[in-house]
């Protein structure tokens, strides 16, 4: 490995960040997100339209010739950092990254263009917990129709098209109205899971499942680190702000050394995560050293995001246990993210093979 990844954010990337953050400040406040989690419409499709249609962010990973923006994983990572900060209930990771990557691998240009426009939402029908390279659950393909049930499909309730791996090795595009999507009661209400039941649903084979899913999940794992960075950063920032304001024993509680040290430690972890997440995004963009840097980022990111959210809760104390306060949104997202696209342990196991530190 001779070259080093570019670990900085460019001016253009910072401008993109500012634009996304402005939009989310205006359209995605915490109280609204909490209220939406218990409504009939857990996904904020109006916000999705602003992000996808208005700003063209759904097509960042898609070449311009196919209707996208021709940007890279670096820009998509910036968007995910901001969506993570807001715990925004939009299917960006699932549609604009995961389903899009699967279609980029299989080469279905028509559907790819529709996803890039944001007017069609796609979801890969692979359980959210699945690590890149893990065995796939499939449905039965018979005479062009699909039969079976898949669980844990993130954002399926918002999807117009599902990409379904079948037992014949194919990946099939299936219209959402041809299947039954049953919401599951999910730990993270801002990225809800659903069961997808196919009872003779017609599917169109778009490519080879194994290769498409592997590519999609690797990008998902790498870019999830950016979302986890956003979750961790926001948790830290909000906690620091609160501890400067909150007074007990006639002084700001942020002045107690036991708490200062915990926050400084957390800051250090967030600084590390920023480098790890940036390295993964850059590696996905350049194709250099990608497997190692994605595994490193995901092995590191999950515990840090969970730690940040757990510290946020403990240091907010009583108010942090309430449904009204947004801390729980971050805790639930961070904990769900620690399982999504493979646990830290699964990624460490992958790494053992990649860097020749073999198990006993």
């Amino acid at each position, binding site marked *: 490995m001779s070259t*080093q990844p570019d670990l900085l954010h460019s001016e253009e990337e910072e401008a993109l960040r500012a634009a996304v953050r402005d939009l989310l400040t205006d359209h995605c406040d915490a109280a609204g997100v909490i209220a939406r989690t218990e409504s009939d419409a857990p996904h904020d499709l109006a916000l999705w339209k602003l992000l996808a249609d208005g700003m063209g962010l759904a097509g960042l990973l898609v070449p311009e010739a196919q209707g996208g923006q021709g940007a890279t994983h670096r820009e998509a990572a910036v968007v995910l950092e901001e969506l993570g900060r807001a715990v925004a209930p939009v299917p960006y990771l699932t549609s604009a990254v995961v389903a899009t990557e699967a279609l980029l691998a299989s080469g279905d240009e028509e559907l790819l263009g529709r996803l890039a426009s944001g007017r069609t939402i796609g979801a890969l029908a692979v359980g959210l917990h699945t690590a890149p390279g893990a065995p796939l659950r499939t449905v039965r393909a018979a005479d062009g129709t699909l039969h079976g049930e898949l669980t844990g499909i993130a954002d399926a309730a918002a999807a117009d098209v599902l990409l379904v791996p079948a037992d014949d090795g194919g990946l099939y595009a299936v219209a959402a109205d041809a299947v039954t999507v049953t919401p599951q009661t999910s730990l993270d209400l801002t990225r809800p899971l659903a069961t997808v039941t196919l009872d003779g649903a017609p599917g169109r084979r778009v490519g080879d499942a194994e290769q498409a899913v592997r590519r999609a999940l690797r990008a998902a794992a790498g870019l999830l680190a950016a979302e986890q960075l956003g979750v961790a950063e926001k948790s830290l920032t909000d906690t620091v702000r609160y501890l400067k304001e909150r007074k007990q024993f006639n002084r700001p509680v942020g002045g107690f050394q036991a708490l200062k040290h915990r926050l*400084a430690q957390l*800051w250090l972890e967030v600084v*590390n995560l920023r480098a790890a997440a940036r390295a993964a995004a850059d590696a996905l963009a350049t194709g250099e050293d990608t497997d190692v840097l994605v595994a490193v980022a995901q*092995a590191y990111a999950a515990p840090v995001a969970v730690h940040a959210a757990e510290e946020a809760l403990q240091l907010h104390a009583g108010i942090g246990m309430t449904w009204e306060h947004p801390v729980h949104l971050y805790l639930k997202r961070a904990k769900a993210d620690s399982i999504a696209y493979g646990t830290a342990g699964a990624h460490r196991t992958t790494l053992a093979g990649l860097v020749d*530190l073999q198990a006993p």
Partner: protein
Amino acid sequence: MTGAEELRSRTRELLAAHPPAETGRLDFLRARFDAGLAWVHYPEGLGGLGAPRALQAVVDAELEAAGAPDNDPRRIGIGLGMAAPTILKYGTEEQKRRFLRPLWTGEEVWCQLFSEPGAGSDLAALATRAVRDGDTWVVNGQKVWTSSAHLARWAILIARTDPDVPKHQGITYFLCDMTDPGVEVRPLRQITGEAEFNEVFLTGVAIPDSRRLGEVGDGWRVAQTTLNNERVAIGGMRLPREGGMIGPVSRTWRERPDLRTHDLHQRLLKLWVESEVARLTAERLRQQLAAGQPGPEGAGMKLAFARLNQEISGLEVELRGEEGLLYDDWTMRRPELVDFTGRDAGYRYLRSKGNSIEGGTSEVLLNIVAERVLGLPAEPRTDKDVAWKDLAR
């Protein structure tokens, strides 16, 4: 402003006038200093040309390609990194001319007489006394954790000149001749068996007022220049993957399948990930500095590396099992250079314990991060307005 091209041609002139193959090492280094190519960002006449610091790399590359000798910077790190910038900033013209040239060439080694048995993290509480007697200061006290004291000709010294004012105000900064009567250097043996450091006892040491650096009572401010420069070095490093403490244990793991257990495997992988992330963080910091966007991230790097060095070397001792019960050599030695990743696992384990103490304890660094980076309230200061002589000790 001196540009890269001019520096390149000046370097070639130096090499032409003093071909390294035919010139004695010291003669070459003196000539390099006099040509202003020692540290190009220093002023003319003091080893530099007033050029941007970043252009030093141009000179170094030319000299290295020509096989020129260097001044063995690791051996004289305290002089180069701490004494020199302080003398440059606060020294008189005479002091700068007297001290900087032999400091840079390595003819005169420097050490630092700051820490005391009663003044560690609270350095400003130091008790070594300097009492004025005409044009001379008479110094009595004890310093500790002094590397290179047994090799040094000179020391930077801070001592208390006024015990009746609050502790930060009564300190004065001196340049102390280590060959003076009353300076006694004793090796300080540490847990590794060797003695990298010394205790220095100062008994009636007479320092002429001409070797005071800065104003009387302004020593704490002068010392900030010294201490700020202590931590500059880390940012520029470019570490390869497995370049730090994780390297030796990873190699042992690969070479010795007989030692592997599942528990150790999980812990090793976790530390490998953390080491790689720390490396990426250091690399990101380097890229920020190169792009002219210095961030506060450097404050955290020492914390991270201290913990990793300790955990990794501890794991390695355990991994070695039966061999981990042995130690390579307890002989009392006085190494000139310290290599944290050198020797065997047991040495690395014991030496790395110092990483969270030397150059600022991890606890103090966490305070610094919390206060300066996160803006959290400072620790309550009960000592700020109390005369030094009335402090608890």
